[in-house]
């Protein structure tokens, strides 16, 4: 037993050393902006958009497969049963947080947000993402030998990139210098995607708030009730608090979108840097970390949307205002 453990440890160390010395990973190239894949007239299709379509396709396929032969009592090993476990978990969560009256109203948005983010994050860790694409010619970057895939000249990351950096890079004949513009890149590493999800979520939340409380909902933001009554001092404070509420509403948009973007983008950078430093074995630990981050961030986004929606449809204590004038 002890011998085996030592043997495994030695093997792992040997793999790390061999990978480090003889199979160096590609130099990390960090681009905050998503790279364009196709130009259709004035329309630029970015690789994160393609990845978002891919995750939509995966979700559609899985749910189509599960609901194709849906039965009232699904058998134990069916896809339908597996998905119902997930959906049931979220329905319970909605019931706990929002109460049974609003749970069914919030449930579709919450679970859609979770599924899309979760599937996008996990798909983004697959091989093929971030590794295959065009070479964007430029001064900096690696030297790429040509690989022809039919009529296309493509770049596949570890295989036809050589580790030459800087201005004075001179490759062999027919080589180009530049950086990789991959065809696929984890959807949430573009702020456009995460901001879009956050905008949809906040639009729904404001809509639900308006529908549940009517114009009383706007009273949270522009509170002139006490000002009109002649109570100048407290009225001004109410106005100021309303202003703060407006700002915090906008800050939610920023923090929702940047939280997801920051976490997933930082994960990608971490992975590419670790691949560069230690290309074998150790990277698996970080992939495991990213699997954890991927599901947690999806859960956090969905849960925050649920909680914000619950807060929005709850009356702001305006009815008991006379009884508790200090409540705010």
């Amino acid at each position, binding site marked *: 037993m002890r011998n085996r453990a030592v043997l495994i440890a030695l093997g792992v160390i040997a793999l790390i050393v061999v990978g480090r010395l003889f199979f160096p990973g590609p130099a990390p190239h960090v681009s*905050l902006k998503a790279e364009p894949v196709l130009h259709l007239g004035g329309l630029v299709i970015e690789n994160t958009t393609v990845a978002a379509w891919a995750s939509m396709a995966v979700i559609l396929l899985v749910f189509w497969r599960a609901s194709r032969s849906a039965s009232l009592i699904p058998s134990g090993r069916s896809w339908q049963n597996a998905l119902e476990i997930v959906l049931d978990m979220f329905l319970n*969560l909605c019931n*706990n*947080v929002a109460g049974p009256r609003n749970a069914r109203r919030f449930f579709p948005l919450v679970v859609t947000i979770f599924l899309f983010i979760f599937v996008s994050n996990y798909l983004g860790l697959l091989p093929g993402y971030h590794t295959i694409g065009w070479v964007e010619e430029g001064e900096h970057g690696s030297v790429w030998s040509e690989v022809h895939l039919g009529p296309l000249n493509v770049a596949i990351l570890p295989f036809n990139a050589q580790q030459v950096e800087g201005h004075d890079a001179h490759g062999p004949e027919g080589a180009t210098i530049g950086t990789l513009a991959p065809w696929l890149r984890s959807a949430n590493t573009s702020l456009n995607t995460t901001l879009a999800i956050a905008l949809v979520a906040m639009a729904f939340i404001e809509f639900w708030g308006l529908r549940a409380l009517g114009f009383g909902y706007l009273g949270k933001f522009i509170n002139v009730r006490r000002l009109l009554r002649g109570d100048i001092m407290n009225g001004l404070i109410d106005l100021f608090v309303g202003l703060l509420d407006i700002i915090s509403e906008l*800050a939610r948009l*920023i*923090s929702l979108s*940047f*939280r997801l973007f*920051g976490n997933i983008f930082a994960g990608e950078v971490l992975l590419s840097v670790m691949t560069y430093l230690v290309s074998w074995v150790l990277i698996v630990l970080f992939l495991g970390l990213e699997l954890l981050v991927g599901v947690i961030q999806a*859960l*956090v986004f969905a*849960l*925050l949307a649920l*909680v914000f929606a619950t807060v929005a449809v709850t009356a702001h204590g305006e009815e008991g205002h006379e009884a508790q004038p200090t409540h705010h």
Partner: protein
Amino acid sequence: MTDEGLKLLAAALAIGLGSLGPGLGIGMLVSKAMEALGRNPEAQGALFTNFILGLAFAEAIAIYALVVALIIKFV
């Protein structure tokens, strides 16, 4: 020091110092949540929701630091 170098330094300081507070906050949050879970394991459901919420709010401060760092670097 060049302007570009100052910018890089400022961005690094912004995110580095900005994540100190949230890091401490999340640490305290997790320690207290674990303590509560140890004392009362049945409360896991309610605890989990509130834990994630608190985590998100603590993390939001670090996100503002990240936004500031990105603005310094790229704008």
